[in-house]
């Protein structure tokens, strides 16, 4: 046990048991897995990915390059740092040798997001961050303070003095002051992991209460104060990867946070002042300590403190290597490499400001030779960097910089400048730079030798900085060593890019609530309940759920659809068409607008009439189709396909607003205002006539492609004679509040005729039998109205409309263009799979070896009740010229013969539409 009495802020009154690599360990609330393992002098955690060398805990927080564990219980989580896992009873973990393991069962934990707005976001609750947050809060600003550690105070150990009192009291006071203000939100265990434009910072909270396990806060701040501290820099030497080699400040952290002494015989090797504090603190906690300072001048104040305690300090002395098996047993010191026994070798090569959040938004770094570090360069608007993150490494300076007029006070500590020391002399093949990737100085040397000149190339050649820690300790050291090897100044080389996230974030946390049915809206019509009650099967059409068919007991889809088709062709069916897009087009220039948007003429449409219309893109390809009702001289109601409703309205608005703002027209979406029920079949007149008794539904009074307004129990209803099946049919549209009631009335009235609800699949069959294309199914963005046989809907008179000019391009004149035709399998039995390709039928009827030229493909294919056989629609090169010819369709390796025909297969005379 290395627990030291009188140290640490863990709750020693309670015991927590965890299991690591099969061994049970006890610790206390406030411990991390790392502190527990150190407290028990546990054996190395794992072995390295490439060379299988033992690895242990190298640091006390997110910068640790080695102490990775796999959490097994309570729920598997791959690759987390032992130093960041707070222990809980029953936690089971194991060391990771390189790869984490995902759970095989779904994670039931809840993750959520929250948007937060504030005047000032302070990232980091160390002395600089707390001071900055207090300052802003006292100005009355809305402040959010986030910090990734379990408790505020950053790396303050408690030994410091602020405003004449122990530093932890200062921390407690500031936290209490902030907590009392309703304008301040203070979140611990919350990592600001990404910084984006306009003050957007994403922060992940590891929650300890509430309804979710983790929460992503999307914080939009008018001002972002980055007080993220600094990361201690290692010095590279031979066998620097041995367990027991640790960053100096981390040993202090373990001691003061957890009361754990990471070693009893300690060698501190440093090129910086800060490590002396570790030496002194560890000695005070009863370790034996010796200091090796690479610099020739030892800072006076620290020399005195060391002398008072009998700590031997060797100036101008470097560590060259280590000895040991599973862990370090000695440091090899100086040119003579004489062995100094130790069980903990603390290293400090200075500090690197934590600049990640500054660089995420494009901040440039500058090399500060006095600090021996890259620090934030030209300030960014709306972003402040304070404290160690800005290269202010002394407490007094941090407080002064962050605090403004009432800054807290700490005594100045005169010191010596940091000496930049990337590595000491030794065998480069055993000098580890990136301990997770097992990459050494020799690897960098090979990269440079192979011709690599950019740090990005060195990174890729060596893989340094690409592991779990993303090079938090290794990245800049690698730049420094590369610069040395190339004989160039490090400022010329710079660093590799710091990319978000700062620390790894679980996929599920980013997904948040957008899982399952909340992943994407499930849109349903006002009649949806009725379809569910009738046992409908649904299909996804965009975000909509549409009733596809209504199987009865024992029916599969084919049987249900054949029954529904037969009902429509012989009696009457009803379908919910409410998902169609509907746009109210109003204004004196409404007809002018529609004439420009549709291929056919809409201005000649008479009030009370309906016209089918086609829209093309500027490239002349069909975009959408639908019906247009002229409601008044200056008012039209346009319908669009379900899937294109939003896109068509957006496009109409785009042209209207940006190209033709002079047109006096306004567009209003009424897609959900109006529900539409199609009533189709020879008995539809009886049904509609029964429900709307005041309407004369005879053909003479209510002709095809006309509409009439009426009312049902005082509720306005519009009826239109529109057919997408070729049968006599009516569309009933009503305010959607009343849709379900109207549906019920129609079913009730249709009962004598066996009225049958039918779904989209049946609708597709019925329209295909008539050769009506479905945009998006029979077209693919490369099909013109002429290709579909809709040349009749393309005006020759209008001087221009969108897409017209493209029809004149050479490709559009090619008689070999693909055209929509029907395809009847010669065996009258095979239903050709939709998507099947079409080829010439060879004499022997066999499919030749590839490559086989393709003529087109099957776009729609169904069993037909009316034809008592399967049939298909297809796009075929020069198809209309080939009507009557037999082609081949490869199905499961065999060629199925099919005859090309006209698209209209049922009622080609159009006799049925009037009943």
């Amino acid at each position: 046990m290395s627990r030291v009495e009188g140290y640490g802020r863990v709750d020693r009154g309670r015991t927590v048991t965890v299991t690591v690599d099969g061994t049970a360990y006890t610790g206390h609330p406030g411990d991390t897995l790392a502190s527990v393992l150190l407290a028990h002098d546990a054996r190395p955690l794992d072995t390295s990915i490439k060379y299988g060398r033992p690895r242990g805990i190298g640091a006390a927080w997110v910068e640790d390059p080695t102490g990775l564990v796999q959490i097994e219980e309570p729920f598997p989580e791959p690759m987390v740092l032992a130093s960041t896992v707070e222990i809980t009873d029953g936690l089971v973990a194991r060391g990771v040798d390189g790869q984490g393991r995902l759970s095989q069962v779904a994670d039931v934990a809840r993750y959520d997001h929250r948007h937060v707005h504030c005047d000032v976001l302070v990232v980091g609750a160390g002395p600089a961050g707390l001071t900055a947050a207090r300052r802003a809060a006292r100005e009355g600003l809305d402040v959010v303070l986030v910090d990734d550690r379990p408790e505020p105070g950053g790396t303050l150990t408690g030994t410091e003095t602020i405003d004449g009192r122990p530093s932890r009291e200062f921390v407690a006071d500031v936290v209490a002051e902030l907590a009392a203000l309703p304008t301040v939100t203070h979140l611990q265990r919350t990592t600001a992991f990404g910084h984006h434009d306009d003050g957007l910072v994403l922060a992940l909270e590891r929650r300890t209460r509430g309804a979710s396990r983790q929460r992503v806060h999307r914080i939009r701040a008018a001002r972002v104060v980055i007080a993220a501290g600094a990361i201690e820099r290692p010095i590279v030497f031979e066998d620097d990867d041995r367990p027991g080699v640790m960053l100096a400040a981390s040993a202090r952290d373990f001691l003061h946070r957890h009361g754990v002494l990471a070693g009893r015989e300690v060698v501190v090797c440093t090129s910086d002042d800060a490590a002396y504090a570790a030496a002194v603190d560890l000695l005070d906690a009863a370790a034996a300590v010796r200091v090796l300072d690479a610099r020739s001048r030892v800072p006076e104040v620290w020399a005195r403190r060391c002398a008072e305690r009998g700590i031997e300090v060797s100036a101008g002395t470097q560590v060259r290597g280590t000895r040991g098996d599973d862990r370090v047993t000695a440091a090899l010191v100086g040119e003579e490499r004489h062995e100094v026994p130790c069980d903990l070798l603390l290293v400090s090569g200075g500090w690197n400001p934590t600049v990640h959040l500054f660089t995420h938004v494009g901040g440039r770094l500058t090399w500060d030779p006095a600090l021996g570090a890259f620090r934030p360069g030209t300030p960014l608007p709306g972003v402040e960097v304070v404290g160690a993150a800005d290269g202010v490494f002394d407490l007094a300076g941090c407080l002064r910089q962050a605090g403004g007029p009432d800054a807290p006070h700490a005594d100045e500590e005169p010191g010596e400048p940091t000496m930049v020391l990337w590595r000491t002399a030794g065998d480069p093949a055993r000098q580890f730079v990136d301990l997770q990737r097992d990459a050494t100085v020799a690897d960098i040397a090979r990269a440079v030798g192979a011709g690599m000149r950019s740090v990005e190339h060195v990174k890729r050649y060596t893989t340094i900085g690409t592991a779990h820690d993303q090079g938090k300790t290794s990245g800049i050291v690698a730049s420094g060593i590369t610069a040395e090897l190339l004989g160039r100044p490090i400022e010329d080389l710079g660093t590799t890019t710091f990319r978000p996230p700062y620390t790894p974030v679980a996929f599920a946390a980013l997904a948040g609530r957008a899982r399952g049915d909340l992943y994407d809206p499930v849109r349903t019509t006002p009649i949806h309940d009725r379809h569910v009650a009738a046992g409908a099967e649904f299909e996804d059409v965009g975000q909509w759920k549409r009733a596809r068919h209504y199987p009865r007991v024992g029916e599969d889809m084919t049987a249900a659809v054949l029954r529904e088709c037969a009902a429509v062709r012989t009696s009457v069916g009803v379908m919910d068409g409410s998902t169609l897009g509907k746009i109210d087009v109003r204004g004196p220039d409404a007809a002018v607008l529609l004439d420009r948007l549709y291929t056919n003429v809409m201005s000649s449409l008479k009030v009370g009439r309906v016209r089918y219309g086609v829209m093309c893109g500027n490239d002349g390809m069909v975009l959408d189709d639908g019906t247009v009702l002229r409601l008044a001289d200056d008012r039209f109601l346009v319908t669009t396909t379900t899937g294109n409703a939003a896109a068509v309205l957006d496009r109409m608005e785009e042209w209207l607003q940006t190209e033709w703002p002079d047109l006096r027209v306004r567009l209003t979406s009424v897609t959900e205002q109006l529900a539409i029920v199609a009533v189709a079949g020879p008995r539809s007149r009886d049904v509609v006539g029964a429900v709307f008794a005041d309407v004369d539904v005879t053909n003479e009074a209510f002709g095809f492609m006309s509409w009439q307004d009426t009312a049902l129990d005082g509720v306005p209803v519009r009826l239109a004679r529109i057919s997408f099946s070729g049968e006599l049919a009516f569309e009933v549209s009503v305010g959607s509040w009343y849709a379900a009631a109207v549906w019920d009335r129609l079913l009730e009235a249709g009962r004598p005729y066996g009225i049958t609800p039918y779904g989209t699949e049946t609708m597709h069959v019925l329209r295909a039998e008539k050769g009506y294309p479905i945009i998006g199914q029979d077209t693919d963005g490369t099909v013109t109205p002429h290709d579909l046989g809709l040349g009749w809907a393309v005006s020759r008179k209008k001087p221009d409309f969108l897409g017209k000019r493209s029809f004149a391009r050479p490709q559009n004149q090619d008689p070999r263009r693909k055209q929509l035709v029907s395809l009847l399998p010669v065996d009258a039995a095979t239903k050709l799979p939709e998507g099947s390709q079409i080829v010439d039928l060879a004499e022997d009827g066999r499919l030749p070896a590839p490559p086989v030229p393709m003529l087109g493909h099957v776009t729609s294919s169904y069993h037909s009740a009316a034809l008592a056989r399967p049939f298909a629609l297809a796009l075929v090169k020069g198809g209309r010229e080939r009507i009557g010819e037999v082609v081949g369709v490869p199905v499961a390796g065999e060629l199925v013969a099919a005859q090309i025909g006209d698209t209209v297969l049922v009622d080609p005379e159009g006799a049925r539409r009037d009943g």
Partner: protein
Amino acid sequence: MQLIACPWCGPREELEFSYGGQAHVAYPSDPAALTDEQWARFVFFRDNPKGPFAERWAHSAGCRRWFTAVRDTRTHRFLSVGPLAASGSGATS
């Protein structure tokens, strides 16, 4: 995700907007008079500068108004926003 200043609604999240590409590309006054090449130029070709770019945007999840903006494609940042030019704003498809 940056904020975009809708001329009507004020600054809103980028997610609420849709992109309309280059601004100030007028629909030809007489497409029939154009050669195939000139027509292709209008339909398919747009500038793609690295630097300031005049563009059309729509606040599609807000007021649904279109507006023009100048944005630096190197940084993605908006330099200015303004109402639509009187004509020739370049609806494209």
